[in-house]
């Protein structure tokens, strides 16, 4: 199967997306919500390219657009860059401190965003949620609510009993927005024994946490073996 990317003719096989084919041939397209181990999601809109499938140029998300015979693709045309700039501007509105987004902004020449939103490193790309479901097979987290209230959370905002603490979500997050504590922490709720309790103030440290954490804190006070043996050096 032949297609044309930025004026270069390339050969690819059916079943590839435009993004995969382009990357395979050395054309770089920025992405945030794309991961090789997961199905395409087309959420971040950074991978937008212009394609012409015989009906004129249109903007599409290259991570989810299948290659077709004689398809023409522009990865860095002016409409494409304009779209990416707007996307990055919107990302900058809430996640301006994230290194990967700052880097994108720099590359695309976005200085200060026109928009301003409450600071939140999570860009709702859904990588963590999809990794938990597709790679780990656990589904301990999901995307909840709609519109501006949308966020990644455990079901009913309760500390997860399903999470296996494998760290895949933390590793796959492009912005470093998720921590295991967000999933298993339970600052306000404790969900053990398949029952729900309010977290109690700890009499030792004064923080709210569950009874199992309390045990951990106590154990951690023990010094790691160091002591006497170290004085008898060779």
């Amino acid at each position: 199967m032949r297609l044309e990317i930025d004026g270069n003719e390339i050969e690819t096989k059916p079943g590839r997306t435009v993004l995969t084919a382009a990357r395979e041939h050395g054309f770089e397209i920025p992405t945030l919500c794309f991961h090789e181990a997961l199905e395409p999601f087309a959420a971040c809109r950074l991978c937008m390219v212009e394609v012409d499938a015989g009906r004129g140029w249109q903007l599409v998300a290259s991570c989810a657009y299948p290659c077709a015979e004689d398809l023409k693709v522009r990865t860095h045309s002016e409409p494409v860059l304009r779209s990416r700039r707007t996307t990055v501007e919107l990302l900058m509105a809430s996640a301006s401190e994230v290194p990967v987004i700052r880097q994108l902004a720099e590359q695309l020449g976005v200085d200060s965003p026109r928009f301003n939103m409450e600071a939140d490193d999570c860009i709702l790309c859904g990588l963590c949620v999809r990794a938990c479901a597709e790679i780990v097979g656990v589904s301990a987290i999901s995307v909840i609510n709609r519109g501006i209230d949308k966020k990644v959370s455990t079901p009913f905002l309760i500390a997860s009993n399903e999470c296996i603490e494998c760290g895949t979500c933390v590793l796959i997050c492009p912005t470093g927005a998720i921590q295991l504590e967000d999933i298993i922490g339970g600052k306000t709720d404790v969900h053990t024994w398949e029952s729900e309790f309010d977290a109690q103030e700890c009499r030792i440290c004064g923080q709210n946490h569950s009874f199992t954490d309390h045990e951990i804190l106590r154990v951690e006070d023990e010094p790691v073996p160091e002591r006497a043996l170290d004085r008898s050096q060779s």
Partner: protein
Amino acid sequence: MNEDRRLGVMICECGDQIGSNLDLDALARQVDEFPGVATTRRLRYGCSPDGLASMQSAIAEEVLDAVLVAGCTPRTLEPRFRTACEQGGLDGDRFKLVDIREGCAWAHPDDVEAATLKAADLIRMGTAELSFRKPHSPATVEVLPSALVIGGSVAGMSAALALADEGIPVKLVEREASMGGPIRKTANGSVAAMSKAVLEHPQVEVMLEKRITAVTGTVGRYSVTVDEASSREKGAPEFKVGAIIVATRTQPDIGALAYKFGIPQDENGFLPAARYRLRPGNYADRGIYVCGAPHHPTDEHQAEFQGVRAALSALGHLASGSVANYAPAAVVDQDLCTGCASCVAACPFLAISMQSGPGLLDVARVDPILCSACGNCAVACPSKAIELPLSSDAALFSQIEAALVSRSTNGQPRVLVFGCEWSSQVAAELAGAHRLNYPSGIRSVRMECSTRFDPTFALWAFHHGADGVLLTACRPGKCHYAGSNRNAQDRIKTLRSQLSASGFDSRRLRLEWVQPDDPEAYVDKVSRFSDLMTQIPPRRSLAE
């Protein structure tokens, strides 16, 4: 080591993510020289359809019997490569993904030479390990579609009703002459009405004034014997069930059942929810559920809710028809086993029992459906009769050797980190992903759990010239294998005192607790340990 093996090494460039920070030409030349390597290929994107196709064609063309992909972290893409290998006609256990992106290219971006050296070492360790792997097949058992409820408490009754309503035959055993105990009312009515509903349900067989005397068998097929509660007379004959729900009311009963089923008790004698945080498929649901008073003192609302919740979990188990465990279960060599039963005591999953063997001795047998391949038994066995197919002693010793075989680390101390899959491996990968720098002389040996660490590994490492050995484990209370990290702590303690006693600087051996999502702390800990190795006097060899 099998000398005529044919190993293929695929070096992934990950676009320019790996190639820009590693000298891939030099790396490929080195890898070509490793024993057993039949071919080395470079892939632009190993995980793309073209990359996978190229790997599959290499398997067919070069008649490979093992494949090592050097690319990114195994945490995300391993399943995809593994599936592709299986489609290409290779056993999935003959494939290994070695992380040279997060671990080398991203972690040491300013030092191409050191990063390339590390990548070569990691690939050498991978090839050494691969040659000792023994492919395994999953264990499967059928689950009988019937359940036993122990205790006619509110929780027990609601569990029995919930199961029976779904068509599961339920046997409910209660010590007293009536059910419900001191509680009279439930959320939706009286206990009397609930007890009547249970007694009249066609799917429920209520056995009053009976007690459980023995439970034998394993997942999916438990044999239960019941006696009269008041006398020692033999009661009803033995029956078999697929799931057991524990809902007793009184403390002595709870203790006895906890012992019988191997459910850990907390300091107050209650049974906290057993939650094994292992990958789905790598452990089997044992079909034993706890609800109501054994968890903690509950009111009737909670008890009823927990009963239904336990019943739903049990229903999922019973409806599946069979359970499988894909974990590479430990195998006992019956000729080597001396019948000492150290492994029985060491296994946190109650997977090992003593059974009559070929000779006079009873020998250990591992139930593959219960084994989660943590390695406790393999380390505990004094005659080294227990082997883990994917992480044998030979595989680990050869990895240690491979990590230390090249003598140069650009003047950096040679530190071997034995890393638990669930804590330090995550933290190390995150450190790479966040581009945090740490000393490039560190070589990490991946283990499922810190308890897999045999003290002889440290001695072997020192013998082969390691400057320091760092064992990293999940924090106390956070172990994924029922507190096995405590064993690691004990072993390190003992070995340190032994090393000191023989005049070896014991600061060269250390245990660190690592939190998986805190890469900064990980980097700090390994850097400080590595620095310490440069400050203490040059080490004497173990032989001296």
